[in-house]
């Protein structure tokens, strides 16, 4: 019996354009699903000419868990748990995305304390996510030290989260109508300590990694994509901003208390791996700035404005709202039929949309460049497959 998956993929492979020169022989390389630099179980079929990548065929679905089907059978409060497991490195921002969508549908006004704490905690997680990316980026380029440095500092934020939230990775902290718990009494002091600690460390990151000649050679002018193409291929977040389009929902449609704080949106010029690297490094600085402006005067108030545990029944209709995570736009679309479970729940995930610009970045480059490109767009595979 012919495996139908292979036959359909083979058909696609035969269609892929052949560009051999000098009578070289083409061949195919399977990258993944078990590969250290695809960050999970992503599979790429590469059409190669020598060491040059000609064409890429991504094959998804190795971690497709059916979250959207599952969402239809659980209540609105429980959606937050499922979003933890999409992009687990931005779980708080995903929680915020789905909570904000439900709050908008029900016209719930939040108090300032909730908005401020949400902003601080989300920015902390943006730093945390970029720290992990920085470490893994170094490891993918063949340097092990950034991995150790990145995780050393990531543990500091994890410790702060653990005190307030009680979890290290899958947070489940933001609920429709507020937060699960109020912040820990030590939260403010610990965050201040962290900012004081992390500013010189960021300089250390730059000294260790950015100025390195090998890093520069590996990143500069590799995987170039212009802004228009990136937008057409669905990229958002740092990938799009590195190509020169300042599309950041924190500025465009401010949510939380982003409209009250001063921060820049870092934008690249060329759109290569180096720009994507720089944009994320500067975003960490900007996040520190945002936290510094907010941490000293967190307003007083309740941490939950809804009755805790009450069933949520939004009015009938279609609701779409989006939020900026560390990787791009996380959108929540749901259809309510006035029962306590959504009729349909759909997540617009940033990684699924960011992946396809690789098809424009990588062809013409080497396999080693593809590893740098994949790492520079910072893929999280469960977020792609849902």
């Amino acid at each position, binding site marked *: 019996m012919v495996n*139908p*998956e292979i*036959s*359909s*993929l083979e058909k*696609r492979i035969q*269609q892929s354009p052949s560009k051999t020169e000098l009578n070289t022989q083409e061949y195919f390389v399977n990258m993944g699903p078990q590969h250290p630099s695809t960050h999970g179980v992503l599979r790429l079929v590469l059409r190669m000419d020598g060491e040059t990548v000609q064409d890429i065929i991504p094959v*998804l*679905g190795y971690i*497709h868990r*059916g979250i*959207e*089907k599952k969402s239809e*059978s659980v209540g609105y409060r429980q959606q937050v748990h499922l979003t933890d497991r999409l992009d687990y490195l931005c779980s708080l921002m995903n929680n915020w995305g789905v909570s904000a969508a439900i709050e*908008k*549908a029900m016209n719930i006004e939040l108090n300032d304390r909730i908005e401020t704490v949400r902003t601080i905690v989300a920015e902390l997680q943006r730093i945390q996510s970029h720290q992990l990316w920085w470490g893994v980026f170094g490891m993918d380029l063949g340097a092990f030290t950034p991995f150790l440095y990145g995780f050393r500092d990531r543990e500091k934020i994890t410790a702060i989260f653990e005190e307030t939230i009680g979890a290290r990775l899958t947070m489940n902290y933001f609920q429709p109508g507020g937060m699960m718990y109020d912040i820990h009494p030590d939260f403010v002091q610990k965050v201040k300590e962290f900012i004081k600690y992390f500013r010189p460390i960021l300089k250390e990151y730059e000294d260790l990694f950015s100025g390195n000649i090998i890093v520069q050679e590996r990143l500069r002018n590799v995987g170039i994509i212009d802004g*228009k193409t990136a*937008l*057409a*291929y*669905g990229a958002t977040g740092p990938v799009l901003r590195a190509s020169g*389009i300042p*599309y950041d929902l924190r500025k*465009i449609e401010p949510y939380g208390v982003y409209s009250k704080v001063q921060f820049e949106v870092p934008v690249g010029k060329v759109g290569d791996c180096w720009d994507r690297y720089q944009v994320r490094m500067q975003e960490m600085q900007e996040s520190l700035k945002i936290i510094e402006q907010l941490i000293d005067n967190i307003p007083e108030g309740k941490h939950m404005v809804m009755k805790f545990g009450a069933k949520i029944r939004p009015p*009938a*209709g*279609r*609701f*779409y*709202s*989006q939020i900026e995570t560390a990787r791009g*736009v996380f*959108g929540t*679309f749901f*259809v309510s039929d006035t029962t306590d479970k959504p*009729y*349909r729940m*759909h997540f*617009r995930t940033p990684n*699924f*949309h960011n992946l*396809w610009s690789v098809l424009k970045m990588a062809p013409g480059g080497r396999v080693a460049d593809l590893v740098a490109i994949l790492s520079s767009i910072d893929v999280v595979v469960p977020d792609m*497959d*849902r």
Partner: protein
Amino acid sequence: MTKEELLQQVCGLADGMTIQEQSNQPTVNVPVEKWLSIAKTLKSDQRFQFDMLSDQAAIDWPQENQIELVYQFYSTSLGHNLMVCVRVSRQNPIAPSLYQLWPISEWQEREIFDLFGVRYSDHPDLRRLFLEDDWKGYPLLKDYKDDFMLERPW
């Protein structure tokens, strides 16, 4: 342009277009046979300039025997957004593919084909995206049944 002006101008593009009230975004219903030409206008017209297709989703309505396709557009130059709902029949769901206007559409459509079975005409590579090719049925349809899937007992 305000939300109402945008909706009026979009509705003026063709007959049979209505405003969808039950939504938190500016939303229009578009008949499927006119959808491709209207999409071209939304992309190229100076008044709209929707250069970003943020999201595509589908909703199954078994009582009305229809599948609804929901598109989210955003214009980076003009800063407005629009939600478009297109209904296709459930027995023979065929919709036009938008991959020539917004390339990301190619994979968003593959996802909807995979999970809902909506077929897109002129799609360059309409294969299942997440599930294997020999998968029976389309799991996100409301009447999907499976020997493997367990119902929650409470």
